[in-house]
């Protein structure tokens, strides 16, 4: 088969993977190599689905012995199949990289023969790139759950980032749709990686020249909306994974209809805004001091699609508002709907020199409609007196939910809530 046809098939097969990050790794070029990595990755292009293209994201092969129902490459799908040789992937990566199309490679694969055989093939590509092609750019390798610790170690030494996908939020979901996968096995692999990352970090602190293991850490991906699991359950799982395995990122990927899908899957994809709300909640948990249980309730186990999770939390907890922008501590400022981390820090900086007024907020480009009812400023703010009114939700929610939907991608990246 021609290289172009393989590329078409194996890129198509990889497009359901949400992650494209190329950040978090610092590799300097010694002057003889091709490539380096920067702390903040670069998105070299965008496709009309609003997703960025920063890595050559492909499968080594889409043949697979597994039968995960949500996956287009499962054994019982009649999707067209192809398989790259490791040298072909290395060639494509190098040539694309030289033309500045990409930041590096994100390589995944269907499971062929066995878990360990598949893992060895993935490592072989990275090894070729690093040692034969002198490639110093970003490499993200998918770790196959259940791979032997020895192979995981080898993978971590050539890759910047590793990831094992948790796939679905709960074990029951896996039982239903991915019969060969178990949460226990996936987490065992995550734990293996977390241990090696931690150990390597300590080594590098002691001796600068110590080999780095997956310097950009590990991530995972969860498919949202393929099963009935609630946002509450999804966030519980994400929170547990962050804490147990020190993940850098959990990616939420709205289930997208696949050709030849199974009838156990929902006929319609979930609204893309749901994915966006999960990313917002993820950020609230990691950077805004929210507890996972504060974002959904037993009565409403799913996040609101109409308003962002911080705003809906604030509407449920009106007794804590309005907050005085000139006096409140940072933790409280972070809880104000419409204020992101950056603006909170700016407010703290400005108020050392002058008191904060409403037009300062406007200059910080804070969303006034959302924020007004929740703050006290140095000047008169009549909206703050209306905090207890029944129609508050209508007064603060921007009517153009549609617009927010478009803003979703950017927001998911920056975490600005």
């Amino acid at each position, binding site marked *: 088969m021609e290289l172009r046809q393989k590329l078409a098939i194996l890129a198509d097969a990889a497009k359901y993977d949400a992650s494209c990050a190329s950040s978090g790794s610092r590799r300097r070029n010694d002057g003889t190599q091709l490539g380096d990595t920067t702390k903040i990755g670069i998105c070299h292009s965008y*496709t*009309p689905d609003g997703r960025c293209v920063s890595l050559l994201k492909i499968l080594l092969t889409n043949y697979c012995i597994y039968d995960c129902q949500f996956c287009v490459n499962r054994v019982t*799908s009649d999707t067209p199949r192809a398989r790259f040789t490791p040298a072909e992937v290395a060639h494509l990566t190098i040539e694309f990289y030289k033309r500045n199309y990409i930041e590096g490679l994100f390589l995944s694969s269907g499971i062929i023969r066995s878990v360990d055989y598949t893992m060895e093939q993935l490592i072989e590509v990275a090894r070729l790139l690093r040692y034969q092609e002198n490639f110093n750019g970003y490499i993200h390798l998918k770790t196959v759950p259940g791979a032997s610790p020895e192979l995981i170690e080898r993978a971590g030494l050539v890759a910047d980032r590793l990831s094992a996908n948790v796939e679905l939020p709960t074990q029951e979901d896996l039982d239903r749709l991915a019969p060969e996968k178990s949460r226990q096995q996936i987490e065992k692999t995550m734990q293996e990686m977390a241990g090696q990352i931690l150990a390597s970090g300590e080594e590098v602190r002691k001796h600068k020249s110590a080999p780095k293991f997956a310097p950009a850490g590990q991530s995972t991906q969860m498919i949202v909306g393929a099963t009935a699991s609630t946002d509450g359950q999804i966030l519980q799982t994400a929170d547990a994974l962050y804490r147990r395995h020190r993940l850098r990122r959990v990616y939420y990927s709205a289930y997208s209809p696949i050709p030849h899908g199974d009838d156990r899957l929902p006929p319609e994809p979930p609204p893309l805004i749901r994915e966006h709300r999960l990313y917002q909640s993820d950020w609230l948990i990691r950077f805004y001091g929210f507890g996972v249980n504060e974002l959904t309730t037993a009565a409403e186990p799913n996040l609101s699609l109409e308003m962002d999770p911080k705003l809906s939390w604030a509407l449920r907890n009106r007794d804590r508002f309005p907050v005085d922008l000139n006096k409140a501590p940072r933790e409280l400022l972070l809880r104000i709907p419409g204020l992101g981390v950056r603006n909170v820090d700016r407010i703290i900086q400005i108020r050392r020199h*002058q008191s904060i007024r409403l037009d300062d907020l406007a200059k910080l480009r804070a969303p006034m409609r959302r924020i007004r009812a929740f703050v006290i400023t140095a000047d008169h703010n009549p909206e703050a007196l209306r905090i207890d009114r029944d129609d508050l939700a209508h007064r603060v929610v921007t009517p153009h939910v549609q617009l927010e939907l478009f803003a979703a991608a950017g927001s998911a990246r920056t975490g600005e809530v």
Partner: protein
Amino acid sequence: MYQLTTDRDFDRWRDLARQMLAGQISPPQILWLDREDEPSLLSNTALTPPVSSQPAAQTRVPREYLDLASKVACHRDPDRWNLLYRTLWRLTHGEPELLERVTDDDVYQLGAMERDVRRDRHKMTAFVRFRQVPAESGEEHFVAWHRPDHYIVRLTAPFFRGRFAAMRWTILTPDDSVAWDGHTLHFGPGVPQSQAPQADELESLWRTYYANIFNPARIKIAAMKKELPVRHWSTLPETQLIPDLLAEAPRRVEEMTRKSRENARPGSGPRSSGSARPGDAAAGDLYSASTSPETYASGLPAGKAATFPWTAEPFIPQSRSLKVLAEASKNCRGCDLCDIGSQVVFGEGPHDAMVMFVGEQPGDQEDRQGRPFVGPAGQLLDEVLQQVGIIRDECYVTNSVKHFKFEPRGTRRIHAKPSSREVSACQPWLVREIEVVRPQILVCLGSTAAQTLLGRDFRVTQRRGDVMKTEWSPWTMATIHPSALLRIPDEALRAKSRGEFEADLAKVAEQIAKLKAG
């Protein structure tokens, strides 16, 4: 009033600014310019700056300010030098904490300019696309042409030096250029786009990748355009695919859901056919959803969600009068084609016509005149009808899709095939026309009409001229579309196909004669 020229050089501005500060020259007394030849309203009053005999006084400003100023200096706004001197003046005249007051008008503007420059630098690192050019030494050489918004080549060159250290490369922009020879960065003047290399053979592989990594089930145009501003598209090889990818997306999504539905039926789908195993020699049908899309129209408004079905159904009145139906069709909004600026071309002919011809869609001429089959294809049809003895005025002539779909190319409007989603949206109109006319003879011209009425897997090439009894008419036949005849480049093949077309229509004439006789 002093007029000072910086030559777009931050270091030069810094030297001059030091001298001005030492001479206690306040901001309103200075007009800063990028270049000497810049037109100045104040040229009459301008004076040359005082050359201080003493070394410039040591002025202390925060390192943070110098860093910020060196970035702002790269902004294209000609007023930036004045802003920089004004903030420098304020910092050294009683407001040392100025930079912390980010909502101050001047500081706010500095910040905004710094953000513009930072974003522009980031976009340069992302959007420079190298093209390989033949080098005499045999060494690979890569050249890119890029159009930054600001004067950022010097600021951004070190990034490319770090990343592509082992490569020889040149980046050309309208204002500056930079080349790396493996040891040193060489800066030079700007270069027009016409001097950039025109192609690289890898670009078609890159486009293959781009087309296939795109998920047609999620469309977020605004998000894409925000991060990939349209003004950069001309230098990005992949962006020429975007209109096609968007136009194709609804059809591909429909295809996916159709395949899913087929799967849901027991006994069909992958469970029976899913034998693909690692090592299988053949990889199945390459031209399903995973191959790169063919070229389709780009006249569609972008950004419509792609998940709901389109249909004309709600726009069709109860009436059985063709006149009323034709009038109502003008208000149809069953699909997006009503937004592309062409008029509805409804069917035409007697309501009790014996024969009905169904084509694909109106073309340029039909759209201008508002009548079906009046362009070149219509003339060919008339010619052959006359030849075999069919009177066109006795026939009802219509199309599967009632709008002209096209791709603008200069002043011309090039025909674009309607997507299956548009065809299915428009189908209720055709069905109603058939219900009213109840033709005894129905002729589908071309594959769009044939597949609309006879099923998606109907192949005109294989089953042309076959007479069938269908739910639409007791005597149904499909043949070649006359416009397809016009497009066959090979003369011999064209003559052969024309013969087949004539033979099919002769069969129709025969059937008309038979029906009229008996």
